[in-house]
């Protein structure tokens, strides 16, 4: 059975996001992912609120990074959340967004090593070990929690590049593939599978999730309108090689990027083409979304994450996914 996850960005106050989380839980979603960017509200405080008001949904950071918060404190936060909602917590971690991290003066380097070491420290602390760690990026002289952690806390790795995908397959309990298009997901699943093989694990040992930009509406036009701003920013942040791979006109992308730089959102959003929407989002009527999700499922994903913007009206979009989309994937 394909699991469904949902991502929320804590740009809204906690009570709105928690209301959506309750709705998502009641509508058949199994996973709740909260993004972690310093410009928005704090991910752990938001997750704590969600933990209190939900009963069964599994939740986690979608995703945090090893740089902004020391891995010891990340482990502490996740372990404390696990007390609020035992067995319902996961850690989602990735390399982080370079631009955002640079904005707060954080120097990044060796992303693979940093993520790998952070996970290593995390797991040791969760296991109750006294961690004296001499890594390339992180060093601890003897870190140990004064409280016990019940059960195991799975680690999901957010990945896009080939090496991070391999690491995710090899080390992670789950892989969060940051892609929406079948060709990208196919490539990512292959790379992650390579890592799974290297670790002598079986594919069922690792939850492979397509973490998509998603927009659904009964009317295609409205779904596209909601997806357009998100896709515009994805295009602006994508290297030429990625754009060319999807047959996107580089001149159009440059035009869009320049407009965004000038805060000319009208021009930027009008530069978004149907090819861009198709490449970087799962967008359309419920039937169109079902078709795309089915395609992704055949490629080997075990979880489909409905990411931002979800729809023009989030509550109505969740209702629509619950009534039309999820039932198509229940076995």
């Amino acid at each position: 059975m394909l699991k469904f996850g949902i991502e929320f960005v804590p740009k809204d106050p906690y009570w709105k996001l928690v209301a959506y989380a309750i709705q998502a839980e009641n509508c058949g979603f199994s996973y709740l992912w909260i993004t972690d960017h310093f410009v928005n509200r704090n991910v752990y405080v938001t997750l704590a609120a969600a933990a209190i008001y939900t009963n069964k949904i599994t939740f986690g950071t979608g995703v945090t990074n090893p740089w902004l918060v020391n891995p010891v404190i990340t482990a502490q936060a996740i372990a404390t959340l696990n007390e609020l909602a035992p067995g319902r917590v996961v850690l989602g971690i990735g390399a982080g967004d370079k631009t955002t991290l640079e904005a707060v003066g954080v120097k990044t380097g060796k992303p693979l090593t940093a993520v790998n070491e952070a996970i290593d420290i995390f797991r040791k602390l969760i296991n109750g070990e006294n961690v004296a760690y001499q890594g390339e990026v992180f060093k601890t002289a003897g870190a140990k929690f004064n409280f016990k952690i019940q059960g195991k806390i799975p680690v999901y790795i957010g990945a896009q590049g080939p090496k991070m995908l391999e690491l995710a397959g090899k080390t992670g309990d789950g892989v969060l593939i940051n892609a929406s298009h079948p060709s990208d997901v196919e490539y990512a699943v292959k790379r992650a599978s390579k890592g799974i093989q290297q670790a002598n694990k079986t594919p069922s040992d690792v939850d492979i999730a397509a973490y998509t930009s998603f927009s659904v509406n009964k009317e295609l036009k409205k779904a596209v309108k909601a997806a357009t701003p998100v896709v515009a920013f994805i295009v602006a942040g994508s290297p030429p090689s990625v754009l060319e791979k999807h047959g996107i006109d580089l001149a159009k992308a440059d035009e869009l990027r320049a407009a965004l730089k000038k805060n000319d959102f009208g021009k930027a959003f009008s530069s978004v083409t149907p090819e861009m929407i198709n490449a970087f989002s799962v967008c359309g009527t419920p039937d169109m979304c079902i078709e795309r999700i089915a395609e992704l499922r055949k490629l080997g994903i075990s979880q489909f994450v409905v990411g931002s913007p979800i729809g023009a009206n989030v509550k109505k979009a969740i209702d629509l996914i619950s009534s039309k989309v999820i039932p198509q994937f229940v076995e």
Partner: protein
Amino acid sequence: MDYPELVKLIPAEKWGLISDQLINLILASKNEEKMPRQLADTMLLHMKNGNSESKSGLAALLEASVLLEPEKAMNAFCELQLPTVAEQIKAKIATMTAEAI
């Protein structure tokens, strides 16, 4: 008239429909700063326990929607052909406006 009393003016068979409409109104509102924390917690607790369509759940939703989107809340009850409720909301808006002045 307080909010639980106001709920009594609504036929019970419409509580489900109205609850859904009010949640939509509240979540779509941009006037988030007008939501008192305690009321938000009451609303979430009712949602968690599946009681949003109960008398107390609906009272919380009514209060929140009148605080965040008074005009839209009033119009919703006009459209639902519940003029008595709409009138009561209008009176609450008048009180809120007077208090603000």
